[in-house]
């Protein structure tokens, strides 16, 4: 996952996940649900990520694990992005 994509994921989390803490105080592997994200906020986050990265999370990815951390979201997007957004590679050569 490249650095720009991680920055974008953090921006979307900041604006849509209704976290009671600043996401930039959390590590990439910190549990967003433990940090206060509700299940309903995770829906908003999912939809906002779809807008930001021009993709759609398939049903098989609608799990708690996919949205539980910045890193997990990055891994899911990296898996979907080559198909959903081939003009903007999000993996390989990241910072």
């Amino acid at each position, binding site marked *: 996952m490249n650095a720009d994509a991680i920055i974008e994921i953090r921006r979307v989390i900041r604006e*849509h996940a*209704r976290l009671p803490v600043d996401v930039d105080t959390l590590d990439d592997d910190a549990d967003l649900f433990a940090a206060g994200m*509700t*299940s*309903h*906020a995770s*829906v*908003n986050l*999912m*939809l*906002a990520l779809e807008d930001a990265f021009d993709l759609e999370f398939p*049903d*098989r*990815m*609608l*799990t*708690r*694990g996919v949205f539980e951390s910045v890193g997990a979201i990055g891994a899911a997007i990296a898996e979907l992005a080559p198909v959903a957004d081939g003009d903007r590679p999000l993996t390989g050569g990241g910072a």
Partner: protein
Amino acid sequence: MGLRVGIDLVSVDAVEESIRIHSARYLRRVYTSREVRDCCAPDGAPDARKLAERFAAKEAALKVLGVDDEAVPWQSIEVHNDRFGSPSIELSGAAEQLARQRGVMELNLSITHEGPLAAAIVVARVRDEP
């Protein structure tokens, strides 16, 4: 025979925000067409309080089903009212399959909203483990 209970609380304001930002896509991804129809005014405007109740019911049901990291689409848990107006839950697809695996035999639902919050409680009858 055992009982299992799930509860969930949802902010009506959060649902209003989702409708405002994501509009039809939010409704389509989370609710069944029947639920959307049941939660819309005659002019088509969605009622965030009723939708919040349904979202709470879906989450309470997921707790009863003991979902860990399985993929269970929200539409596979549908809330509807019977002819007397009592809410009930109907499972399909992944949720129905999980219920069978977990020995869930019957689900009972109660939902409510007051001011900024909506809540749901689901009680399940489950088979005793051998």
